[in-house]
């Protein structure tokens, strides 16, 4: 039995009079894919924004268990979530640096390590070996991930010139280049064709098993959710209405009524 990686306890997020998330508690485990599903406006992305420091939750706790330490994500804001707490995310509408090359995108993700190696640019300006070695390492790591998604031959093209499906995958491996403990994916299968979404499934399974990374997934594409989720959390109007395995979710009456829909 895996231990819990993330524990969300009594999370509430209010925007003025609107309660976007209402007393939500759930947990996600190491080496597992946890999906958050629910109708539009259920508060899924808001949960992500709280987890990744873009919003400060009104009340509640979000605890991340790392190997030797336990951290409250609430204490981290902004860029520190990715840098210190090691939580990475992708976005519902792809946010690549589209005028920069694919490789550059992946190097920006390794910014902090490279920055330290470059002695905050002082060693880098002098072109010292210490920085060069680190840069080589970073390029090799980028190539490793590009090999996995099969985009190595397009490494020097602008990220914005890639086909849509490749951009989705690139955004995921860019997030992986930050060495996250928890990877939050916001609708990674949106707009993908069946072939592309099955490739995505493979990639996510690979990350889960080989990289020992917990994945939190928001998704509407049921073929993805049911195919790879170990654990499903269903939200409706900011409240959790169900939590369990993919199979149980499919058969739950309340979930079907609220979200999956009844077959005529």
């Amino acid at each position: 039995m895996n231990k819990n990686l993330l524990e969300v306890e009594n999370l509430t997020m209010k925007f003025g009079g609107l309660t976007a998330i209402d007393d939500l508690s759930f947990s996600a485990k190491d080496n597992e894919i946890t999906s958050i599903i629910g109708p539009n406006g259920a508060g899924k992305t808001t949960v992500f924004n709280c987890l990744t420091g873009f919003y400060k939750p009104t009340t509640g706790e979000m605890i991340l268990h790392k190997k030797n330490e336990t951290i409250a994500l609430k204490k981290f804001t902004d860029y520190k979530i990715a840098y210190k707490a090691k939580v990475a995310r992708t976005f519902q509408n792809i946010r690549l640096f589209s005028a920069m090359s694919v490789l550059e995108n992946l190097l920006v993700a390794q910014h902090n390590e490279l920055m330290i190696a470059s002695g905050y640019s002082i060693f880098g300006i002098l072109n010292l070996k210490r920085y060069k070695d680190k840069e080589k390492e970073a390029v090799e790591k980028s190539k490793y991930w590009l090999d996995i998604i099969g985009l190595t031959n397009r490494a020097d093209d602008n990220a914005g010139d890639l086909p849509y499906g490749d951009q989705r995958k690139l955004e995921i491996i860019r997030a992986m280049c930050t060495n996250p403990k928890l990877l939050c994916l916001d609708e990674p299968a949106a707009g993908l064709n069946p072939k592309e979404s099955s490739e995505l499934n493979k990639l996510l399974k690979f990350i889960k098993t080989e990289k020992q990374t917990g994945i939190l997934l928001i998704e509407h594409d049921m073929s993805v959710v049911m195919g790879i989720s170990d654990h499903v959390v269903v939200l409706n109007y900011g409240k959790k209405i169900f939590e369990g395995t993919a199979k149980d979710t499919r058969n739950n009456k309340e979930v079907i009524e609220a979200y999956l829909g009844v077959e005529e």
Partner: protein
Amino acid sequence: MKNSSEIKTIIKDSLFTGLISLALFGPIVGLKTSSKGQGLFVTPHVGIVVLLVTACIIGRFLIGLNSLRKKEISLIANITSSISNYMDNKGKHVAITGFLFAIIFPFLPFTDRYVLDVSIMILTYIMLGWGLNIVVGLAGLLDLGYVAFYAVGAYSYALIATTFGWSFWICLPLAGLFAGFFGILLGFPVLRLRGDYLAIVTLGFGEIIRIILINWYELTNGPDGITDIPRPSFFGLPFKKFPEEGESSFHTFFNLEYSTMHRIIFLYYLILVLALMTNYFTLRIRKLPVGRAWEALREDEIACKSLGVNPTNTKLTAFAIGATFGGFAGAFFATRSAFVSPESFTFIESAIIVAIVVLGGMGSQTGVVLAAIFLIGITEIFRDLEQYRMIAFGGAMVLIMIFKPKGILSNRKPTITLKNYLK
């Protein structure tokens, strides 16, 4: 016929342009007040308004016709695209040729004092453009108050050099340091701002510095400016015709006949070295993590945060480094003219520098050079027209905007390529 409907739209367009130009030129050019005896009288200038409006209509019509022809062959588009292609492939050769030309330039037969003075001015603008390129081109922060750092550099140099009498090479880094400090000072309040809002606040900052310089009479000598700023010396050898007792001057030391050109040539090389230093620094730092973070920040700040890039530090370094180079250029300006006053640091200077960066192609180092030569050079050529030479400046800008809306050289090259790495 398909063409006739298109020509109709072009004519409509031209007439509309005529209407706008009439609205502009009518009151501005058409009505002139003159005082005869007692009171003001308005004298209408109908002829010149008609002339200008017709020129606008015809100009718009020709541009429209040209865009119509574009579908078949567009000469200008072809030329410009082949130039940028050439620069992509042979960019290095062009840069080296330009560099060698810049080195022998003072000794070419047609180079007289005037040409050299203009070149020094162009080089100053190139250096300012390269400095601002870090902030605007790479980090994408539209700074309309860059002249403030130029002013801080110039005044720091002037005050330190006149008060303590230190040499140029000690005062120069200090001037850069002060300007960099002011860059961070400006950086803090504008961290959260983007786009138009950032532009307005930086514009205000530029004006604040100028107004402080005018009003802080005790320190800056107000609108009278600071005079008698020490001229630079050639490693301790002054450029004086009659050196003081026991002191050798440049021409006596090298056994040359005294000529004022020596100092001008020295200034030329000084600014050339400073500008190339800026260029080298920018090219290097662009390939470092911080440079890539600047460009990433320009592309998408939210994505940057999600990858753990600290936007605060990244922006502040951009402001500080850009400002430092502005400060260096300011110190050079002070030592060259031996006189600084707030009048030299008006908003128009900021606008010219921004224009050079934007029209050169954001982030392109060579583009800055071309735009500076084009804009400042054209304005100089038409110097005889006195105040009307600004029309040439505006015309040059309009030409670039029509034919190269993204800047003269707008192709961005990746800072690192896997292809070269695997070799």
